[in-house]
């Protein structure tokens, strides 16, 4: 139904407040999805909690060796592996300084898709 779709203002508001949580090349896709959502989906997507990539980067820089950064974005398996191997012998800890923001944004997109699908 046409009246259930969010208006342009709401869509733009969402993108303005939450744009930083996603990879910039995904924003177009997100915008198209938002325009086609009904009220319930839009609500779920708005109330979903997303992780701030900058904060996760700070965590990674400080205690990345213990895998806390991976745990925080919900990647439990990788977090445990990182913890057990002392940050992958230190090498993985350093590599993650460069990878973790992208990983956070990918996980945020996952949360977005799950919220819109209603699981």
């Amino acid at each position, binding site marked *: 139904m046409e009246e259930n779709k969010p208006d342009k203002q709401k869509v733009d508001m969402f993108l303005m407040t939450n744009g930083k949580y996603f990879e910039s090349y995904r924003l177009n896709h997100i915008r198209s999805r938002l325009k086609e959502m009904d009220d319930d989906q839009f609500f779920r997507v708005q109330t979903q909690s997303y992780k701030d990539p900058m904060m996760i980067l700070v965590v990674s820089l400080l205690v990345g*060796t213990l895998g806390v950064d991976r745990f925080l974005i919900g990647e439990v*398996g990788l977090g*445990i*592996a990182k913890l*057990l*191997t*002392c*940050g992958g*012998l230190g090498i993985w800890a350093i590599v993650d300084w460069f990878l973790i923001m992208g990983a956070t944004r990918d996980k945020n997109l996952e949360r977005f898709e799950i919220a819109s699908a209603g699981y």
Partner: protein
Amino acid sequence: MSKPDRKFYLLILTAIAAGYLWLGLTWYADSRAELKGTEYTVCVVKNVSSLPCPSCGSTRTVKNLFLGNISDALRINPLGIFLALGLLIVPVVFIWDIISGTRHLRHAWDWFQIVFSQKWVLILFFVLITANWIWNINKGI
């Protein structure tokens, strides 16, 4: 093999290779007479704060397990047991998966993530890790 599966199996291969490479390096370093007795560590936590992290000592444990000294191994760091088991079992399942086209490793990983995402499992895990960490500090690893 699908793209995410290929990425996963490549990561597993890298991890196992890195693990054995590391073991080989420490074995070599330990066998050089002039290096004997020198303390070295890759642990950022230990290098910065001189306190060991929860997994410090696991390399020594794995080495001891591979040599058969089980009691020594348990005493140094129990986490090394999981690493040793991983280093032994994962390559076997990896080769099996590649040859027979199954995805046992992938399924095991997914199952592992699901189990460990539950709150009580995570809490128990962190309690055990912290206990092990305190023990590490007390032992002066």
